[in-house]
């Protein structure tokens, strides 16, 4: 009896484990297509990027040599790269300030009790669904043709010159187009934050005699901090990799004055036969973005702890 019972349970256990592994196999099959595509078209190119950054490849020759970290040492002595780094940082800083202020201001306006709130919201969000390349080209035409004509007609000298044609002002032309396009998404994110502020807190504070600005600083602002973090990360990442609007508006010019890092990598790698060199530049942006993403992840995990 004993013996039979043990063999029966053993058999049952064996059967279960076979069933279990079969089930596991199905689950593994679920991941295979995605995993293969991810490895083949994302992970492998990323590894190759690191690999090329250690070579002197021009992008076309059949052979290339490994030159260690020479590319990395060279980019930090390259004034063109350093200039594009400075340009990208300056661009990012201004865009962050403008987008955050405008988005927050608009979000606060649009969450008050307004008439036509839905309509306002639809209009303000509209630029976000358009492609930056088309927006860049439209603003390019406006700066090139329309504003100078208006400036001349009104006798305003500042308007009558194309701001994209001047080394010192081209940056601001690019910023205008990007801000026009990029306020909408942070605005709606802020609106989500504002909707999470409990109404009774505001009412209680009003009864206690808190002024409008006092209520904003001590009640609204703390609820907005998470949204502010999300927006900062999004806008900084977008700023450091700006590309489309520069191609559409200035093509890096006049001269090389509006070359962002993303744009310089493209030029060096594909048009100026410095393929290995350009991948080293791209690994540098990778380090910057990775740092920012890391901070973001840290913050995200903190938020989850806070919620529990």
């Amino acid at each position, binding site marked *: 009896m004993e013996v039979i019972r043990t063999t029966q349970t053993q058999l049952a256990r064996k059967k279960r484990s076979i069933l279990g592994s079969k089930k*596991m196999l199905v*689950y*593994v099959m*679920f*991941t295979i*297509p*995605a*995993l293969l*595509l*991810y490895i*083949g*078209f994302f*992970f492998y*190119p*990323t590894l*190759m990027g690191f690999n*090329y950054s250690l070579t002197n490849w021009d992008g076309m020759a059949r052979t290339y040599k490994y030159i260690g970290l020479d590319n990395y040492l060279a980019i930090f002595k390259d004034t063109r790269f350093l200039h594009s780094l400075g340009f990208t940082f300056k661009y990012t800083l201004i865009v962050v300030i403008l987008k955050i202020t405008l988005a927050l*201001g*608009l979000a606060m*306006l*649009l969450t008050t009790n*307004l008439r036509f709130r839905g309509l*306002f919201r*639809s*209009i303000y*969000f*509209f630029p*976000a669904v*358009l*492609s*930056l390349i*088309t*927006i860049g080209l*439209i*603003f390019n*035409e*406006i700066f*090139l043709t*329309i504003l100078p*004509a208006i400036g001349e007609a009104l006798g305003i000298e500042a308007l009558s010159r194309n701001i994209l044609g001047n080394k010192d002002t081209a940056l601001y032309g690019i910023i205008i187009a990007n801000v*026009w396009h990029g306020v909408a*998404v942070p605005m*709606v*994110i802020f609106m989500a934050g504002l909707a999470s502020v409990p109404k009774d807190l505001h009412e209680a504070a009003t009864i206690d005699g808190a002024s409008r600005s006092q209520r904003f600083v001590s009640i609204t602002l703390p609820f907005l901090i998470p*949204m502010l973090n*999300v927006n900062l990360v*999004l806008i900084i990442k977008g700023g*450091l*990799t700006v590309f489309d609007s520069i*191609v559409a508006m200035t093509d890096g010019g006049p001269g090389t004055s509006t070359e962002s890092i*993303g744009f310089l*990598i493209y030029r060096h*790698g594909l048009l100026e036969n410095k393929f290995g060199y350009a*991948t080293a530049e*791209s690994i540098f942006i*990778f380090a910057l*973005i*990775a740092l920012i*993403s890391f901070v973001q*992840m840290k913050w995200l995990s903190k938020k989850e702890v806070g919620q529990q």
Partner: protein
Amino acid sequence: MKENTLVRAIQYTALLVGVFIVMIPVYLTINLSFKTQVESAQSFFAPPSGLYFGNFASVIKGKFWINLGNSLMITLVSMLFIMVLIPMVSFAISRNMKHGYFKFVFYFILAGIFVPFQVIMLPVLKHMSNLHLLNQLGLILMYIALSFTQGIFLSVGFLKNVPIELDEASTIDGCGIWQTFVRIIYPLMLPIIVTIVTLNSLWIWNDFQLPLILLNRSPNYWTLPLFIYNFKSDYGANYNVAFAGFLLTMLPIILLYSVMQRHLISGLTEGALK
């Protein structure tokens, strides 16, 4: 009370100024595409005296329709695969998080958020050229692969709130894993799938960098962003034709936005918030 009316007035004024700034480029684009050069030279802002369609005719005599078709095809086919593959792999991961293999797959794919597009931009060109994939198929494969990091992050997060008891109940009812996924889990995932679809279809439709790298060989391969970028050399100084081109390229998105703006707004923001 008086102060309140003043505040109101300032609020509305600020909002209307903003609306004006948002609408001016749109108005100019529409207005100038219906005018002849002679007419628009008199005033950029006055509405056209009649509807002149000559500018549009110059736009569509190029490869506009072919490129529009390419954009539609590339977006639709990529979305079809994204809608199937992301929920599948996310389901497998979320049900087996304790298992080393699935944990590895999850974090391996999630690590993609550290890598900006610029890093793969140049290697991808060489890679695809070696594979003879410098065409629409190659572009679609890239879009699918690049959609995984965010999509799987969103879906696995969503599936945490879909109780595993549902899977167990359906197993008892005699469903296999595949049937459980198709009949029970996939329908429950629809809200997050809608978010993923809006986010990715807008990105794929508007993307300029990848087509620029992969499709710049023949105008027959181009998508709409590449069409409008290269159109610059066709119109020269005739900005009326240029604006007609801008309007036609934006038209599909304008139509879509007017029909389902709510989805587009929530899709774009939810993706960022989670």
